[in-house]
């Protein structure tokens, strides 16, 4: 049975509630609690008041008209309390910024506290530019180069290159003048070796990522364009958090925004695929979105549409139906923030038209999805509830993690106390929402309780319990039934103290198959992660032991992993060391598997000088790698080693 979302009703409801919540008295943002603002309490000497200073980190100097009865003061520059860094030089108070000041208008606010308990506040403004030509202009470029030459190889390392040249360039540049702003960011790497490079990497220069932007801002209007690796963020039912190479353009005007983009539907590696822009819908995604903030931000409306296709998966993606696909999708998202986050209402609808395989004889299929959610807090209580329906054929091109064929209701509530918090979540959902008699319907019921303790200073602890029930109904005879319960208990304990930390974790989970097959199993996992950092030695380790028990066969499979990262300094700024490794054992109680392996790398690096004609930290190092594995059942042993001489340096240029 198809369901019709009641969006018009919800819209009216949201409108009424948003209007009602405007009656809440305006909060005190922007109001100053300081006393009167007489002029002449302080004098801005450098730069002079309302003047323009050229420089990225200009010295700021001010002076009190009188220090009589002054007990203290507070200096705030652009919202940052700089009092602790202001030094006094006789009658002058001087601040040297430790980070570049952004260009533009600046406000220095000084609150003076007098011995009689009164306080006065005074504000001084000035303007800064990074250079005479541009309000803001910088270019930071870092180049690194490494040459490696093998001096000893054994075993599997004989298949590796006996030399390798690698390099990298990271660049970030920006210019800004008036309302115009342009940025260019990118990363390149270079790889050359005498063995083939596994695809999609290529020998030579590879483009890791880049982004070029240009924008123009005037009053409430901003127009912009982007080319490179750009984000695609539409609505949860369409695409969120996707990054692809292509181009985008948009405009914002006050509370309204519009954005259009055209990107490759695949992740592009290196220079393959160029800019990612394409006029073919077979292997690109075109997306359009518009947003509006209504009622002073109390309500936000976003509408989006995308169309495109995927000819084949990216190198980082595998899909069970990896043929060529095409599709269109549209969605609307309404969000309302009422009573200052005490009540957040959300409604979303999505519609899709998707062809799962453009090469077969079947045409595209349409699907739809909608959800309603409410969340918020009252005092220390937080709450949330949602309902969603997603039809079986709802699918969005390019999206990852699209759940379909689901009807779900979910609720959560929690208390945040001063030192601890508890959260309870309940959910129930099922598939086969259209009651297709060819398939069973599986209903899932989840209940979870999580407790966080932060009561004992540096110690934090969490306890969690999750119970999941799944049960099928309306099973056709030829299909198996489902009836199982999974319980998962988790706990973590963390201790932090100055430069060291210890983390403990434990998980116990068991799955009870209530059918005649009675395929029960359980997992027990324990972890320990100590870490210590200092100037001379830094280490982070991980110990993890996991046992999986198949209760049907009564066989245990144990995996133990010990990982270590250790590095530090032997002679300050001259001689450093690194050691990293992973030790693993894997065995079963029926003696079908019994493996052990060790993979380590150690490095000693000597920095010849900190500066050689502009090249930073030219260094020579000796790197050793060792790999050992043994099948204890067959006694097959691998014992591989490699020693490499490494030369490296870096170079920074910019303005």
């Amino acid at each position, binding site marked *: 049975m198809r369901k019709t979302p009641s969006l018009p009703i919800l819209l009216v409801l949201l409108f009424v509630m948003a209007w009602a919540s405007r009656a809440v008295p305006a909060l005190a943002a922007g109001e100053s609690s300081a006393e009167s603002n007489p002029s002449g309490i302080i004098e801005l000497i450098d730069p002079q008041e309302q003047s323009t200073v050229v420089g990225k980190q200009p010295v700021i100097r001010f002076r009190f008209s009188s220090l009589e009865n002054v007990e203290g003061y507070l200096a705030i520059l652009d*919202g940052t*309390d700089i009092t602790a*860094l202001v030094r006094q030089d006789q009658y002058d108070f001087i601040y040297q910024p430790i980070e570049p000041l952004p260009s533009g208008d600046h406000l220095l606010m000084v609150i003076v506290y007098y011995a009689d308990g009164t306080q006065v506040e005074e504000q001084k403004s000035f303007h800064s530019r990074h250079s005479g030509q541009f309000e803001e202009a910088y270019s930071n470029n870092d180049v690194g180069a490494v040459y490696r030459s093998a001096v000893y190889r054994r075993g599997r390392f004989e298949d590796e290159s006996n030399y390798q040249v690698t390099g990298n360039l990271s660049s970030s540049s920006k210019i800004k003048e008036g309302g115009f702003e342009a940025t260019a960011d990118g990363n390149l790497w270079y790889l050359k070796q005498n063995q083939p490079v596994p695809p999609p990497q290529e020998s030579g220069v590879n483009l890791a990522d880049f982004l070029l932007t240009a924008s123009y801002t005037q009053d409430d209007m901003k127009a912009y364009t982007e080319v490179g690796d750009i984000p695609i963020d539409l609505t949860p039912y369409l695409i969120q958090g996707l990054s692809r190479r292509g181009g985008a353009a948009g405009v914002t005007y006050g509370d309204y925004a519009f954005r259009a983009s055209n990107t490759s539907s695949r992740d592009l590696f290196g220079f393959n695929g160029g800019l990612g822009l394409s006029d073919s819908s077979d292997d690109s995604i075109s997306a359009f979105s518009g947003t509006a903030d209504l009622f002073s931000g109390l309500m936000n409306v976003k509408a989006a549409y995308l169309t495109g296709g995927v000819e084949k998966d990216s190198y980082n993606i595998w899909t069970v139906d990896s043929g060529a696909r095409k599709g269109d999708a549209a969605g609307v998202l309404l969000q309302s923030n009422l009573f200052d986050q005490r009540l957040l209402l959300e409604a979303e609808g999505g519609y899709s038209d998707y062809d799962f395989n453009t090469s077969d004889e079947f045409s595209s299929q349409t699907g739809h999805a909608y959800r309603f959610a409410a969340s918020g807090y009252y005092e220390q209580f937080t709450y949330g509830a949602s309902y969603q329906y997603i039809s079986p054929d709802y699918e969005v091109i390019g999206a990852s993690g699209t759940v379909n064929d689901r009807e779900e209701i979910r609720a959560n509530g929690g208390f945040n106390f001063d030192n601890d918090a508890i959260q309870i979540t309940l959910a129930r959902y099922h*598939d086969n929402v259209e009651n297709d008699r060819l398939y069973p319907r599986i209903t899932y019921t*989840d209940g979870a309780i999580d407790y966080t303790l932060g009561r004992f200073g540096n110690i934090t602890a969490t306890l969690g319990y999750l119970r999941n029930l799944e049960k099928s109904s309306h099973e056709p005879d030829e299909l198996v039934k489902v009836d199982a319960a999974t319980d998962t208990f988790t706990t973590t304990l963390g201790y932090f103290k*100055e430069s060291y930390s210890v983390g403990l974790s434990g998980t116990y989970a068991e799955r009870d198959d209530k059918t*005649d097959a*009675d395929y029960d199993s359980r997992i027990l996992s324990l972890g320990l992660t100590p870490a210590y950092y200092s100037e001379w030695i830094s280490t982070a380790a991980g110990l993890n032991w996991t046992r999986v028990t198949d209760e049907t066969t009564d066989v245990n499979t144990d995996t133990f992993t010990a*990982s270590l*990262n250790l590095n530090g300094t032997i002679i300050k700024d001259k001689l450093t060391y690194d050691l990293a490794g992973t030790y693993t054992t894997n065995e079963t109680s029926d003696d079908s598997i019994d493996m052990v392996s060790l993979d380590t790398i150690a490095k000693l690096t000597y920095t010849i000088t900190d500066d050689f004609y502009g090249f930073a930290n030219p260094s020579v190092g000796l790197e050793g790698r060792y790999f050992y594995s043994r099948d204890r059942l067959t006694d097959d042993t691998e014992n591989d080693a490699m020693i490499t001489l490494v030369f490296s340096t870096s170079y920074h240029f910019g303005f």
Partner: protein
Amino acid sequence: MKPTFVISLAVSILLGWYAVVPAPAEKAGSDLKITRIVLRFEDHDTQRMVARRQEGLQAFADIDCTGSGLFEGCWMVDDKFFADITQYVTGSGTIRLASPETPGLPTVAEGLHIVTLVINTPAQRFNPTIIGYFVTTDVKSLGLPIVLTDPPDSAVVDPAVQAFAWEGNPAVKTYLVEFIDDDPDRPVMSAFTEDLHYKLPVAVARYKFIPGRTYFWQVKGFSADHKRVSASFPRQFRMSGMREIDAN
């Protein structure tokens, strides 16, 4: 939504989870099947450049699946075992796997490193998926994060009495405390200090912060030569009503 669905949920909540579990059925099933794998780094990129000795680098996998069951696999770096993955997957949908944060992916050797995910259970045929990270010659000087101590995460804070405190870091000379509303690049308020604690001036707190609203705070560390060398993880707090006391 069907009334029976709501009633069923309500009954299951009221009577306890066991109440909705029926008697054992005749056959077993609900095998876990994977329909899609996406490998990525944290910011959804698939190629990343990182400094040598960078701690905490993680790889992620978003896996779409149907059914339920045991998931077993491992992370591989440069064709060598890195970390084990064993967990149950229940209730069809997308699971998100992450490689361990401590220790993170190895960053000792400069150059390109390839991360892959090997899945042993469920037994399916997958085409290989990869992502890569390139370790540059830059050296992460210290991986030591700044450890926040007070107030605890998600606490309700009265700025008139509560100081924000953290552990010392040997590489840091100056700390920058940032109080963030919704835009991490535009803190509501921030402060430089060389102490290990900071108390919001009431005069400022009163007009910069809204009682009842949730904020984040974090601390960044600068070395004596003004390089940013460390940072804390952010913590959340909710601003309580502000007491009428004299500032400072």
